[in-house]
């Protein structure tokens, strides 16, 4: 159904070509300042991001980090105070209102609160952006039916939004956002108002939209789970700045900034060990010579039998307290928290051995000197 989705519009900016058509969306030194009662607030502070054609790009941050403002700079719902925004090499920030409106039609957007028109049926909501599209009546109808089929809501065409569940509303919003065959879909906390199960189904739908229709998706969220589930790359925002960005796997394997680590920790059970240590739980009462070791598999080496290797090689007893292995894309990532007992030297050698194997090691509690 998406024939002709990719427009072959001439590329006006050489930079788009130079990079081999890599950056579909490009933020160049984008800043946005709000002035409220004389107080100046920098919502977005000198952000530089390249978003590639066909990827799902995540922007994560706590509320107030500026991520919603930043995503609105993609279609200029918020105009940057300074800096430039390019879509396919064309500078959006230099366009007239009229040109801008034409471009906005090619950038779909969905919202946390769905923003469906309450006085219009599901069908009318999806057909809403098609007015003035030049499609004939029959073509429009075909298009809307196809979109409703895509989001699996054909039988709800005549219903009003108030008769739908949250997940169904977001599906309608997605269908509506796709009506004008956009190349980009902006998702502003689209799953934040939904329960975990509905969130999964919406994320799967977004994945499908990305894979099958080739639409680039920018996902704004405060949930690392969302990033982990669907994103290829991620940028972490704090106080208006992008503090860290990269492939999702790399970020999970080796978060550098404290805030990134916090987000990553929140998605695993491993960090619970710190709570247990703080609470002086029985699990964490060590015998002399024991340590609590946290090991993180940074590379794709989860499949190696590292635990049995170190216990055999260094004559150690390894008692696993927590374990966590997850898939990011197709790559497993995870870690273990375990109590290790053995000779002082043996433990030291084992730690060195693990480091050589590129496993992140952290001694959380040390009973060797007590």
């Amino acid at each position: 159904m998406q024939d002709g989705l990719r427009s072959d519009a001439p590329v006006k900016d050489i930079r788009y070509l130079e990079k081999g058509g890599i950056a579909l969306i490009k933020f160049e030194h984008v800043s946005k300042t709000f002035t409220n009662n004389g107080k100046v607030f920098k919502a977005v502070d000198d952000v530089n991001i390249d978003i590639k054609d066909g990827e799902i790009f995540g922007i994560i941050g706590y509320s107030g980090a500026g991520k919603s403002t930043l995503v609105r700079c993609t279609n200029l719902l918020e105009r940057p105070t300074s800096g430039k925004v390019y879509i396919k090499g064309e500078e959006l920030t230099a366009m007239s209102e009229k040109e801008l409106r034409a471009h906005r039609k090619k950038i779909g957007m969905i919202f946390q609160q769905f923003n469906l028109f309450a006085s219009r049926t599901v069908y009318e909501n999806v057909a809403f952006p098609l007015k003035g599209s030049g499609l004939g009546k029959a073509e429009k109808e075909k298009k809307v039916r196809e979109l409703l089929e895509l989001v699996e809501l054909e039988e709800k065409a005549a219903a009003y939004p108030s008769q739908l569940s949250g997940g169904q509303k977001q599906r309608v919003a997605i269908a509506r956002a796709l009506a004008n065959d956009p190349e980009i879909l902006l998702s502003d906390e689209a799953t934040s108002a939904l329960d975990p199960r509905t969130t999964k189904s919406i994320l799967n739908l977004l994945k499908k939209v990305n894979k099958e229709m080739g639409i680039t998706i920018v996902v704004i969220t405060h949930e690392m789970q969302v990033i982990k589930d669907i994103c290829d790359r991620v940028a972490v925002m704090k106080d208006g700045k992008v503090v860290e960005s990269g492939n999702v796997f790399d970020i999970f394997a080796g978060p550098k900034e404290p805030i990134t680590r916090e987000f990553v920790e929140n998605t695993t059970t491993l960090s619970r060990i710190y709570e247990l240590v703080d609470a002086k739980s029985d699990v964490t009462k060590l015998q002399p010579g024991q340590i609590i070791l946290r090991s993180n598999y940074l590379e794709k080496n989860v499949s190696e039998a590292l635990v049995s290797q170190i216990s055999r090689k260094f004559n150690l007893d390894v008692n696993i307290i927590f374990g966590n292995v997850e898939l990011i894309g197709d790559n497993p990532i995870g870690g273990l928290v375990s109590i290790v007992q053995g000779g002082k030297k043996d433990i030291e050698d084992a730690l060195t051995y693990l480091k050589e194997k590129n496993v992140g090691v952290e001694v959380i509690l040390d009973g060797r000197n007590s």
Partner: protein
Amino acid sequence: MAEILNQWIPNVMVRTDVLWQSFVDTIVMVGWSGAISFVIGIILGIALVITRPGNIMENRVCYQVIDKVVNFFRSIPFIVLLCGLVPLSRLIMGTGIGVRGAIVPLVFGCAPFFTRQMEAALSDVSPGLIEAAQSMGLSNPEIIVRVYLKESIAGIARGVTITIISLIGLTAMAGAVGAGGLGNFAIMYGHDRNMPDVTYTTVVILVVIVTVIQILGNYIAKKNTHE
């Protein structure tokens, strides 16, 4: 039937022609001033909402001017407007008395009230919807028609209902100063000539008119509410 009416409301039955004329006058006054006020109110209501800080056509000066003018006319007692606008009425309508003479003050009394009703109805449209419409590339005029007006049909219907009913009250007052209509009828015969049956009959007719309008308004509002 006629006998019972003759017995119960003798003073009305001998001047049904006057009653009919009064009824028509009231309808004409409400119809004309209502229609003009509707147009003015909807334009000013939209203007107030879209020029408000943070909205699609934010304009401080425009907003403040309309806001203050509306407040100014809303704070003048209607009876003062009736007398004060006679010269303007003569200028526009050619007369300061009668049904024609009442329309100008009625519009001045009604339009600001209706403007506020429209402002309230349009303000109920969630900013999220406006943002969604903008993200779809709609222009401001399109947003006004396809989002603001379309989404607040129910609210507008309720506002129109309240406005028409209060307008009927205003026409009765205008009647007291010689504009004709049912109010005039009640004052002239019921009060001045001490014919209570005329007063009661007028009240019953007004109750029926108001009820019909309220039912109609509720119906339209309900039809357009999908929450």
